[in-house]
Structures are given as C-alpha cells and as structure tokens.
C-alpha cells in the first residue's frame, strides 16, 4: 500500500477531528443553535441538554462528577483559571506556588505573571528521565504554599510524572494540586480520584475533538476547591467562567471523550507497538541515537530522539513530506533550543538534534516504515557533511573542545 503524503506524525500538537465527532456536532450549528443560557424556550433547553450530556461524557472519561467540569476555550485558559483563580481565592492563606521547569508555557508564563504580583513560585528541576524528584517537592512545601501545579504528561517528551504520588503529598500537606493533563487524558487511564487531583486542565483538540474548547476539572468534595473567576460576565459555569457556551464545540468534546473512553485500551496498545517498532527500526538503521526522557514512564504514542551530530531544522528540511517537530532553536523565532530538553541536562547540542514523533488514531505501519527509511537516508547524508560527526569519528571528544563562539 502506497502511503499518502504528507504524513502527519505530530499528534501532540493537534489531532484531526474524528468524523464521528463532526457528525455529532453538525446539527448544533444549524438546527439546534440555541443559547444554552436561554431558560425560557425549547431552543435554549435543547442546547442546555446537549451541553449537560457532553459534561457527563467528559466527566466519565476522568472519573469525575459532571458538576465538576467547567468548560473553557481550551487548556491555556484552563491553566490560567486554575492558577490565577486559586492564587486570588487563597491569597490570605498563602502566596507560594510550586511548579516544574518542564511545564507548558501556559503554566510557566502564568506563574511568571503572578511573581510580578508578589507571589513566590518554586520551579522544581527534573531528573535526567524528565520526572520531578518527590523529595524535592516535599521539601519545597511551606506553610505559605497554596498550590502545586505539575503536568501529567509532557508535550515534548511524553514523560508521565508521578501524578498519584504528587497527589498524595499534596493531600497530606493540605495543598491544592492542579495538573495540566492535556496530553494524557483520552490516551491512557486518568482518574481524578485515584490520582488525588484537585484540578485538571483538558483540551478537546488533543483528543480528536474540535479546537477552541477545553475544560477545567474542579473538585467539589474533599476538598471543595474555590476559584476566583478570571473572566467576568453573566456568571456561566457556576460563576467560574462567564461567556456564552460554545455548544457545538462542547458537543464535539463530549463525543470525543466518549470515543476515547471506549477505544483507549485498544488504541493505546496499537500505538505503543507502532511506536516501539519505529524506535527499533531507527536504532537498527542508525547509530548514536539518544532517547530524551524516560522510556518507562512515557505516553505510548510519543517518541523523542536526538540524532547526534545532525541539526534538527536541517533534518526537518530533508523530511519535508513528514510533519514532526524539532526541539531545535531554528524552528522557531527564538534562538534557544527547547527548554524542556535542556532541563534534562542532555546538552544543548543534543537538544538541537531532536525530533518529536507523535503517533495517533490514523497512524499506520506503512507510514512508520516510510518515515524511518527517509530519516535514515537524511541523517546519513547530513552526517556525511557534519564536521562534528567527522571529529567524533576521528576520536575527538567534542565536550572537551574549545569552540570559537564569540559573536554568536
């Protein structure tokens, strides 16, 4: 079977909407277009009913109660609401927040803003495998700590944090625990009670739903989490998030969640095998590959590899019919390589050489074969023109070389 080009292997960035989700959404654009907040006519009732069904579908996916789901415009808003909402509500209790250096920018930048407003933030380092050290977390907690926010699974390296252990520590210390669970929910089991999570950010478009809709899970019991709203208005979503509900998007989110719940076990196993096959094939065909982050605690559909002595952007240029991401600086306007990979301590040169593969619902073995073979050809060609590869083959230890870097 010939593969259709270009190949999409960037499912951590976004996913296509499942056609079954689209079908569910369609009537809500035209026929059932009501405002879910219209309480006095059937148009509003239909919309509200659809939203409540979706709320239940999303809640069921994470083992929550429907009343604990607050719909938002996406995970960035959910992260902002969780952190700023807690910070303002619990200001009298304390002003200290704990997070980690490998968090998504929606978390890091929100924390940075709060620091300007007088909050204190601890950014935990990660170990070589990408996970935080639980003893460091425990030691960082003070009587002023009001929130721990640590992501469930990382968007670049797919590394899964010890969420349940963090939840247990937070509970023991009486500190609220928020997790950005965008990459994990819908892919592998995630239960807010088993993991002792107080808040969790979710996004529809990472799990085959539409863009522009997400949710924040907010625990109602044991403890009851209170949040200050960050958007003022009509008091929708129990006063936590004003704004007319995106009914079509929410309906799609609900259906996407239902499908993930039904298919997760089979799908994640299929993707794990496919990912392992990609990894083994690359290792068979190329030397000097370095996997970034733990292979044991990792999302089944993620692989992040550094191809030593080859720069990431030039690698992407050679595989321009394959959609993947690189941790190299040159792919973005900034000249700094991925801060996540740097945090692993692998060295900037390996960060520049990294590629993130994200497999998903429509990935096939044929696609994996094509990508692995093409990468092998391009890496070989680029290594032939790499002065670093030449030096390494001559036996020069690159880490001890003195480089002329002035002016760069």
């Amino acid at each position, binding site marked *: 079977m010939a593969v259709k080009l270009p190949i999409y292997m960037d499912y951590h960035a976004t996913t296509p909407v499942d056609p079954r989700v689209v079908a569910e959404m369609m009537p809500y654009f035209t026929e059932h277009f009501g405002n879910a907040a219209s309480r006095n006519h059937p148009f509003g009732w239909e919309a509200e009913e659809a939203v409540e069904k979706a709320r239940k579908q999303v809640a069921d996916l994470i083992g929550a109660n429907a009343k604990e789901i607050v719909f938002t415009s996406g995970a960035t808003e959910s992260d902002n609401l969780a952190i700023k909402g807690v910070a303002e509500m619990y200001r009298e209790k304390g002003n200290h927040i704990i997070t980690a250096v490998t968090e998504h920018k929606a978390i890091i930048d929100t924390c940075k803003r709060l620091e300007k407003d007088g909050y204190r933030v601890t950014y935990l380092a990660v170990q070589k495998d990408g996970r935080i050290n639980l003893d460091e977390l425990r030691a960082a907690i003070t009587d002023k700590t009001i929130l721990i926010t640590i992501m469930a699974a990382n968007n670049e390296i797919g590394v899964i944090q010890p969420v349940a252990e963090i939840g247990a520590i937070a509970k023991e210390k009486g500190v609220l625990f928020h997790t950005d669970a965008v990459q994990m929910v819908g892919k592998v089991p995630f239960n807010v009670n088993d993991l002792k999570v107080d808040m969790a950010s979710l996004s529809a478009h990472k799990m085959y739903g539409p863009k522009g809709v997400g949710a924040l899970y907010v625990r109602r019991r044991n403890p009851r989490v209170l949040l200050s709203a960050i958007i003022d208005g009509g008091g929708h979503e129990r006063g936590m998030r004003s704004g007319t509900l995106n009914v079509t998007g929410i309906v799609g989110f609900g259906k996407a969640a239902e499908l993930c719940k039904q298919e997760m076990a089979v799908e994640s196993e299929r993707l794990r095998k496919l990912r392992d096959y990609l990894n083994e094939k690359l290792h068979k065909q190329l030397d000097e590959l370095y996997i970034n982050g733990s292979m044991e605690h990792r999302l089944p559909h993620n692989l992040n590899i550094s191809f030593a002595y080859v720069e990431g952007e030039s690698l992407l240029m050679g595989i321009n019919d394959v959609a993947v991401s690189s941790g190299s600086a040159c792919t973005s306007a900034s000249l700094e390589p991925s801060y996540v990979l740097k945090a692993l301590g692998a060295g900037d040169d390996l960060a520049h050489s990294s590629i993130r593969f994200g497999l998903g619902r429509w990935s096939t073995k044929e696609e994996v074969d094509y990508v692995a073979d093409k990468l092998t050809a391009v890496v070989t060609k680029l290594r032939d023109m*790499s*002065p670093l590869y030449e030096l390494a083959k001559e036996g020069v230890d690159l880490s001890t070389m003195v480089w002329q870097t002035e002016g760069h």
Partner: protein
Amino acid sequence: MAYSTKVIDHYENPRNVGSMPKDDPNVGTGLVGAPECGDVMKLQVKVNPETGVIDDAKFKTFGCGSAIASSSLATEWLKGKTVDEALAIKNTDIVTELSLPPVKIHCSVLAEDAIKAAISDYKKKQTAEGKTAEKVAQPTA
C-alpha cells in the same frame, strides 16, 4: 518557515562537501561556531603557492538549511579568488544572494567568520613553515 529556492538548492545539492588534509601547508582550515549554538562550520581552502589563488574549497556544516547553504555558497565563491579577494567577501553578500530572512543572518556571519578563519590559518602556516615548506612531503588527499 519558507526557504528561498537558492537555499533549498544548496541544501539538496550542496557544493564542495568534504575535507582536505589539515596538515597540508597549502590548506587553510577554519572551524567556527559551537554545537550548543546549533551551528558549526568547517571551511577549508587550498591555495596555489605560485599564484596565491584558491584552487579548491571544501566545507562541512552542522546547522540549519541556511547555514548549510551559506557555507556551500561560500565555497563556490572562494574558488578562483585570490586570498585577498576572498577576504573581501561580506556576510551581507551571502544574505542577498540567498535571500536570508533576519533570523538567519547569523548563518551568513558564521560563513564569513569561517572564510576569515580558514585564510588566517593558511597565512599562519605560510609564515611558520616558510623556510621548511619545501621539505614537507605533500600528503595525498
């Protein structure tokens, strides 16, 4: 990011990739950049001692497509130039020829640095080995 057709052409068909013996007295080698910055260029020139003209130029580059294109173009331009003419090549010439966007100007700067480093290495060898050059056997490539 969209690349100019010239950058793509140099990336797909790089000119003069390779290495010349570093200890050849007529070969000057420049190695600039650093792995942690995402760019390392090695550029070599082989100068005809009789005429002072660059007979051959080779490069190897670790870097993005624009860095590869900048060094590939540099080797094309170097061939046939005298050492002094080569020193007159400016990074802005490379920017213009390859239509590099602002975020890629550092690639052209690095290429200019590589040219200067290679020629300075050649000149250093000439001064140091001036008296003994004739006795040194020419290594085969």
